[in-house]
């Protein structure tokens, strides 16, 4: 008996409700649309600011030399061509294959070394309380406030005394160490998000602590570790100042410095330089896009702590 009555009452209320709500609803949709329009305008502006130089680079890399020196400015190539890429790839002065291989080797090894150091340290920071933890954490923060030129001068003399100048070994270590604070904070965040019970169970099953870290926690944290690794790799891949300072032998030089060497000191041909830039930038952008979600998520957890 009760059911149909309430149902009826409900339907009636709904009807009268919608009839009365129409102006209110309109106001609300107008507000909603207005918000979206405003958002799109603002977002469009920011996207434009972000992308104009990048689009200009892409456009220039596909442009013929004669059109580069024209007063016609547009954001797509006037006459699309691959000649700049051909020029860069075949030019022995660019040595793009060799320097790319160099960059790949140095960045990968530095990333692996960095992860090896930071996974254990991040785990310790996440799971243990120990004396000196606060001091260590403080140093990790202070690390970013130390001016890089000062460290670079001390490092340069030190590497020279160790005969590690002009040598990838020194560069790999510096890159790996340079990323330590960031990687440790980030990995600590990932380990924090894994419940302690999981490794306690593993330890009951007969693993010791390190075994639990290796066999249980690490596989669980793997997406996080890969994200941190990608971030570190891209950082090394993009690095310029240290490579410029420490490596003088052109055969050992890395990609970012190689662009400058290729550019030369005379009148610059921007087409091939932009094509070279594209070749350097694409791996970094692709890797970042691949790890996008993890990077933004990691930032979120990393900085709020």
């Amino acid at each position, binding site marked *: 008996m009760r059911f149909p009555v309430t149902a009826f009452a409900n339907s009636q209320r709904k009807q009268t409700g919608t009839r009365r709500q129409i102006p209110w609803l309109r106001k609300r949709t107008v507000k909603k649309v207005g918000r979206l329009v405003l*958002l*799109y305008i603002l*977002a469009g502006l920011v*996207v434009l600011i*972000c*992308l104009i*130089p*990048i689009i*200009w680079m892409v456009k220039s890399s596909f442009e013929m030399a004669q059109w580069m020196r024209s*007063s016609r*400015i547009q954001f797509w190539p006037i006459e699309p061509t691959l000649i700049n890429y051909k020029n860069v790839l075949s030019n022995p002065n660019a040595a793009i294959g060799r320097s790319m291989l160099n960059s790949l080797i140095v960045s990968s090894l530095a990333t692996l070394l960095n992860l*090896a*150091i930071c996974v*254990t*340290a991040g*785990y*310790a920071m996440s799971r*243990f309380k120990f004396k000196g*933890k606060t001091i*260590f954490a403080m*140093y990790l923060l202070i*690390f*970013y*406030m*130390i*001016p*890089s*030129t*000062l460290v670079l*001068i*001390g490092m*340069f*003399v030190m590497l*020279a*005394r160790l005969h590690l100048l002009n040598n990838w070994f020194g560069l790999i270590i*510096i890159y790996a*160490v340079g990323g330590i604070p960031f990687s*440790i904070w980030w990995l600590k965040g990932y380990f924090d998000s894994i419940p302690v019970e999981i490794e306690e169970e593993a330890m009951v099953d007969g693993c010791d602590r390190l075994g639990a870290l290796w066999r249980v926690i690490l596989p669980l944290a793997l997406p996080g570790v890969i994200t941190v690794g990608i971030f570190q790799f891209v950082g090394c891949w*993009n690095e*310029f*100042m240290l490579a410029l*300072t420490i490596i003088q032998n052109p055969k050992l030089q890395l990609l970012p410095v190689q*662009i400058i060497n290729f*550019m030369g000191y005379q009148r*610059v041909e*921007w087409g091939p*330089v*932009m094509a070279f*830039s594209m070749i*350097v*930038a694409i791996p*970094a952008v692709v*890797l*970042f*896009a691949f790890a*996008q979600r993890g*990077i*933004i998520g990691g*930032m979120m957890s990393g*900085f709020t702590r």
Partner: protein
Amino acid sequence: MKISLPLPGSSKSSLLFGRLRKHSLPYILIVPAVLSLILFSLYPFISGIWYSFTSIGWITDIAKFIGLSNYQQILVGGVGIAQFFGRAVVQTIYWTAIGVAGQFVLAMATALILNEKFPGRFLFRTAVLVSIAMPTVVLALTWQWMYDPFYGLVNHYLKLLGVIHNANTIWVGSTNSTIWPLIVVSIWRGFPFMSLMLLSGMQGISQELYEAAKVDGANVVARFWHITLTQMRTTIMITLVLNTIWTWNSFDIVMVVGSSWGVVASKALTLPLLAWIDSFRWSHLGRGAAISVMSMVLILGMLFWSARRELRSVTE
């Protein structure tokens, strides 16, 4: 008797070892990180400070203690390196203050947009991330090309807008070029990453606060001012301090965009770049270290000074 003896003994020792291991495990785990930080960050830093008091010029030299002579060279008098230093101090302050302020305004706007839900958000996020991923050198070169006096984008549009009358204004790379075009690049370079830092603080604010304020009739501006900014106070402080230090110390943009290799544009020179050039191009490692130390003292001093005022206003 003899058979039973080793058993308790060994179990005791393994117990002891286990206990030791349990206590030392965190130390074993952080030892690689601590050691490499001491060897490759703390030691070079301290030795760098030491070199600023020595006569070391190039790596083959012996570092002889010469007191404050390097500091005297950069601070006293108005010619040579002292002139460069004086100009660089002023320019570094402009570079940092205006650069960070610009970054902050754009980053805040970007973070507010990133925090909203709207269709197409994914594309927006990608655009921001792509500009973070780009290598600094590549961007610096692209900007140099955009600043090209004859065929560059910047001059073309500024001429269209009527801002400049000289069609072939040289912005960067000459002996007369200034720091301002470089600050634009620095703002462009820095704000996307800063927006992610700010976003992390923004997402920690509970939605209920906004709902409550809405019920109380607060408009968008009031909500932004009283909730977003107040709740993000700590994040904003940390972000500003870190970015101020990073911007102060960064010099790859100044170097790649600003100098056309060999030309030292003295009106577009910041302290870290001057230190780098002095050390590695002019072979004055000790004096370069002295410039770096002065640069560090300046920025930390200014930060503490402003932080002290901040602290006082909080405690009162």
